[in-house]
């Protein structure tokens, strides 16, 4: 059997803070990152709330020259990667032969939409020469590799809301295969552009007033943004350099519903959960905490509850489950990275974050969702679910070391 893969560094920029300590403090306190969207967004936009990164000033992180090359999603990925690498204490030398795998559901929408506005509305005829490298979906992965000097496999994974989990599992497999010893993996997205917001609005899944996963009064998701990057290493590599290990990344499970483009399938989600347990060689009874996909839509929360019951059987009632999206919103391709980091820190600190905004359990939502108050508890092993439109499911498993 391949050696273990361990987690040695975490980096985030989220609606709950500009770094991981801010993120974790907010999660434990049960603080919502949802706020009113800026007034300068056009008035015909019906959705007026979102979980945006607050007090973010790009010039505090980048030079003006750099910013001209960086879509907002690349800025987020770079900030998260910087923190993760510093947290792991890795040198450029140690990173050189490693991998960078970054998930994104949306790509460089800020760049794309600015360009369309110039061409179609302002009738301009010339575009900035760096429009392509700034907006391409793989821009964030490229920028992180350049900034950290990684010369091994570098690419972007895109599977909508499961992008980060798929990216993390690819990194796990690359390390297990022996192809690389170190990887920076996670996800990034910056979806607060007018066109994308209008498109989400048209799908009628956005909540007008807040994300309330599994609660009877839930009425949709709240979009989020940001990036999460995790340093993964072979256990041998981490031990040789005496790195501090957060936890073991012990498995991943992937499945596709091959069903409906938006309606989730219980069987597909349950298959990904079961495969993650199997891959991690975990008994269902060893799972103490589960970070749910928990979007707060009618369809997801019932289907996910059923999937957890299907995969875990009687032990489903013994798992503490929360949707941290109730706090950081749904950051699409970055969501899985936020949630895996929340899961890792829950194991480390022995505190499971809550599902906030929880009033009464929704019909068909009958598990322990850690309502409103984070819970001190020992966590031996945990899962984090991501289920995407298009029926793409990816579940990651983390074990205490």
């Amino acid at each position, binding site marked *: 059997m391949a050696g273990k893969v361990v987690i040695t560094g975490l980096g985030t920029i989220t609606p709950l803070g500009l770094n991981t300590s801010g993120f974790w403090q907010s999660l434990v306190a049960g603080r919502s990152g949802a706020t009113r969207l800026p007034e300068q967004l056009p008035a015909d936009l*019906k959705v007026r709330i979102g979980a945006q990164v607050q007090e973010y000033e790009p010039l505090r992180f980048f030079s003006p020259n750099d910013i001209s090359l960086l879509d907002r999603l690349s800025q987020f990925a770079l900030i998260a990667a910087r923190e993760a690498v510093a947290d792991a204490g890795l040198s450029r030398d140690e990173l050189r032969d490693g991998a960078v795998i970054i998930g994104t559901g949306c790509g460089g929408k800020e760049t794309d939409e600015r360009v369309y506005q110039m061409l179609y509305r302002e009738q301009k005829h010339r575009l900035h020469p760096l429009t392509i490298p700034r907006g391409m979906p793989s821009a964030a992965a490229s920028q992180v590799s350049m900034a950290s000097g990684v010369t091994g496999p570098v690419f972007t994974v895109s599977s909508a809301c499961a992008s980060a989990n798929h990216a993390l599992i690819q990194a796990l497999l690359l390390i297990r295969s022996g192809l690389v010893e170190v990887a920076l993996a996670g996800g990034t997205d910056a979806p607060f552009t007018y066109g994308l917001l209008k498109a989400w609005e*048209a*799908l009628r899944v956005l909540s007008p007033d807040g994300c309330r996963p599994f609660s009877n009064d839930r*009425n*949709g998701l709240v979009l989020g943004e940001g990036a999460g990057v995790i340093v993964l290493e072979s256990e041998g590599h981490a031990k040789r350099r005496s790195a501090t290990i957060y936890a073991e990344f012990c498995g991943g499970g992937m499945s596709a519903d091959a069903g409906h483009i938006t309606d989730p399938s219980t069987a597909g989600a349950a298959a990904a959960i079961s495969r993650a347990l199997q891959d991690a060689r975990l008994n269902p009874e060893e799972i103490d905490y589960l970070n749910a996909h928990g979007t707060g839509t009618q369809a997801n929360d019932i289907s996910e509850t059923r999937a957890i019951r299907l995969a875990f059987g009687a032990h489903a009632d013994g798992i503490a489950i929360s949707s941290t999206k109730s706090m950081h919103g749904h950051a699409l391709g970055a969501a899985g990275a936020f949630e895996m980091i929340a899961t890792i820190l829950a194991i480390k600190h022995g505190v499971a974050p809550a599902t906030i905004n929880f009033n009464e359990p929704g019909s068909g939502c009958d598990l322990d969702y850690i309502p409103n108050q984070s819970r001190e508890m020992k966590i031996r092993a945990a899962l984090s679910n991501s289920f995407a439109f298009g029926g793409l499911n990816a579940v990651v498993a983390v074990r205490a070391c």
Partner: protein
Amino acid sequence: MNQRIYATVVKAISNQKRIDAASISQDSTLESLGISSLDAITIMYEIEDALNLEIPNEALENLNSVKDILDGISSLVQSKA
């Protein structure tokens, strides 16, 4: 029943489901017409465009029959007038 509303709703349903408009009646249930949630939001989109309306998300809850859609649209049109 306002004929324009009736014609618009039936046309939107028949376009989306690719079925003969004559096969749709007020009493048809959405289930019998095979209308999924994605069909429903696409039909509402057509109706919004044709009648220059904004249909709130809440209005889509508890729709069971074509008559429910017609009643909902009629009251939206009236409140706009």
